[in-house]
């Protein structure tokens, strides 16, 4: 089976006031279909650089990026944009909703762009918002929604097309813990439906929602942990023995 996402000896060097700064030093990563992978590490470790390269939002200095069986670092901008539209959904820390559109229209947007009929797109958008507990907010402008609600709309938009690959950069960055758990729940549900997820976060508790957690430091992968799903845990409160 071909991986959905692959980085081969990927590197990225930035030019900063005449000196070269390496954002990423030789990273190899393979993400299989249906996996939920999180990349964590302190700011500046290269995790967002990695995500941007994998998404084709930035070009590598060396190495290759493969997405959905295609090498993308050599693609033209138009070919890249077309591939992204068909295959990838994005969730960013700052929701990037279109302020002049309603919540429902924001969710409809990717559906219309991919050629769906307006009426069908409207219906799917309503359904999706309903599932996220936002049925009453479908006609609201983003500015009238709370941060948690806006982020749920952004997640709905990213998932609307049921893209094969969902890329999320600090998706819970400025949410309270309840809203953050809701967003993570949605991402996990997308994984349960067979979509592939790559999430980047500095927050270990967010990263731990994934099935595989990659820790980065200084532009390199420092370690990888495969986690067990749905372990039954109870009776974990420590009670001291009688003395």
């Amino acid at each position, binding site marked *: 089976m071909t991986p959905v996402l692959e980085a081969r000896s990927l590197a990225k060097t930035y030019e900063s006031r005449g000196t070269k700064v390496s954002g990423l030093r030789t990273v190899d990563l393979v993400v299989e279909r249906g996996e939920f992978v999180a990349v964590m590490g302190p700011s500046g470790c290269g995790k967002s650089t990695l995500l941007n390269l994998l998404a084709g939002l930035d070009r590598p200095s060396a190495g290759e990026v493969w997405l959905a069986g295609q090498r993308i670092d050599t693609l033209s901008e138009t070919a890249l944009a077309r591939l992204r539209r068909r295959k990838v959904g994005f969730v960013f820390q700052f929701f990037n909703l279109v302020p002049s559109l309603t919540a429902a229209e924001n969710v409809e947007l990717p559906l219309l762009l991919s050629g769906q009929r307006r009426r069908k797109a409207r219906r799917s958008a309503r359904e999706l918002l309903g599932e996220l507990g936002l049925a009453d907010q479908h006609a609201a402008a983003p500015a009238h929604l709370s941060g948690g609600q806006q982020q749920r709309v952004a997640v709905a938009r990213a998932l609307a097309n049921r893209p094969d690959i969902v890329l999320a950069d600090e998706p819970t960055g400025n949410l309270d813990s309840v809203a953050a758990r809701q967003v993570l729940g949605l991402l996990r549900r997308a994984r349960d439906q067979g979509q592939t997820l790559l999430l980047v976060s500095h927050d270990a*508790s967010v990263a*731990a929602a994934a099935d595989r957690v990659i820790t980065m430091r200084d532009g390199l992968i*420092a*370690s990888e942990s495969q986690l067990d799903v749905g372990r039954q845990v109870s009776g974990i409160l420590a009670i001291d023995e009688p003395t």
Partner: protein
Amino acid sequence: MRHLFLALLSGGDAHGYELKQALEGEFGTLLPSLNAGQIYTTLARLERDGLVVSRPVAGDGRGKREYQLTVEGRAALAGWIEKPVSGRRLKDEFLMKVVVVASAGLAKPKHLIDGQRREYLQSLRDLNDLLDANGKGPTAELLLEGAILHLKADLSWLDLIEQRLELVEAS
């Protein structure tokens, strides 16, 4: 558990099974299954130390006993209430293990750190799952959130240990 029992008994006399039920009501499924032995051993020790007295429940053929707080028991409870819980966390099995195992050349620190990181991440995931599950009280929820915050600190500390150890190896 001693002081928890003293606190529960301050509200009125009770027998062992009632104390067990009160604890279960507060902590729900987080509580390890308490066996009768543990409960009665704790109560027997409290009685030995003069903090509670017991008497047989009238008309109970199985020898069930009811426990009552003594004056000394109330004083012990008051002392416990006023004394803050220790904030020191200077005991860490993992750091001891890494240092000793590395200096004896038994394993690479990196190997131990990776294993420990996975363990903490798995715990984080399990606790987050518990937090998402329904049917737990506010006490259990607070307990879980506290444990999650501690685990996040443990993970950051693991990063720090890793960085320091690498510095030592490089110099």
